[in-house]
């Protein structure tokens, strides 16, 4: 808050030709009268007093040096004032920025809550969720039991009956090779079996 200060009622035109005239004219356009009186007019008044005293003493070099130095100090003071004003307004700027950030986010959140869909059916939910990273499981087809072919019967050594009812020996071994048949054939004990049956047994 800037307190009210006494302001010199001096027109800008009356300062023409004095040092700091252009700076004061520029600052007059963007500073309030109280700030102008405090930040610009106060140092300018001291500069004018010094400068006029040097001019009265006809010290030209000092006159120019005072004008140069006074203008530099005036600009430095204005820059310092601007920095302090910016620092003083930082909390207000921060609050504005925070409000500008929080308000749209809050509005978005409220809208999102308002249009949030209710719970959906599990079937639809599973159908809509596509897990791209899940490895697909192999498809297992149902296996039906097929009828197995009948097992072939082992060849019989007993032979088989032919169409006339006569007993026919097996093709795999001659009848003399079977020990029982050899006994039944009446060869008698002690007789040597035929050579073909011995070789078949071996």
């Amino acid at each position: 808050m800037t307190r009210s200060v006494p302001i010199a009622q001096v027109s800008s035109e009356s300062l023409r030709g004095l040092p700091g005239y252009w700076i004061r004219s520029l600052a007059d356009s963007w500073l309030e009268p109280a700030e102008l009186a405090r930040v610009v007019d106060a140092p300018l008044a001291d500069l004018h007093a010094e400068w006029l005293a040097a001019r009265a003493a006809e010290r030209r070099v000092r006159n120019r040096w005072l004008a140069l130095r006074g203008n530099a100090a005036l600009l430095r003071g204005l820059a310092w004032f601007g920095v302090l004003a910016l620092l003083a307004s930082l909390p207000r700027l921060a609050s504005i920025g925070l409000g500008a950030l929080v308000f749209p986010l809050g509005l978005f959140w409220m809208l999102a809550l308002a249009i949030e869909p209710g719970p959906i059916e599990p079937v639809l939910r599973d159908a809509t969720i596509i897990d791209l990273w899940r490895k697909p499981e192999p498809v297992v087809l149902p296996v039906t039991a097929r009828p197995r072919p009948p097992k072939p019967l082992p060849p019989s050594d007993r032979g088989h009956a032919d169409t006339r009812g006569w007993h026919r020996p097996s093709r795999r071994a001659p009848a003399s090779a079977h020990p029982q048949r050899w006994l039944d054939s009446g060869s008698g004990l002690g007789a040597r079996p035929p050579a073909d049956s011995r070789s078949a047994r071996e």
Partner: protein
Amino acid sequence: VTRKSRKVERLPRVSPKELVILQLLGEHGPQYGLWLVQNSAGLLKRGTVYVTLGRMEDKGLIESFLEKRDPSASGLPRRFYRLTHAGVAVVRAVELAQALLHRPEMVR
């Protein structure tokens, strides 16, 4: 006990430059900015002393007035600064605090 009665009054913050200005004005009476710069032994600068004076004016430690001069005189009138009652109190408080810090036997 109300909340207001429990509220502690904050002491005014005074920077070293402000303290120099307060002490100079307290010793020599009303002065203008350039005089303060020239008599501060280099502690105050031309470019920043007027901003500091304005801040102290906002705090209520000093007040300013324009010099009375002939209206036909060229240039701007000088702005003089003097201590307010609050400024005088701050100067005395600081002087007392410095004395107590340097002479602890004064503290009972």
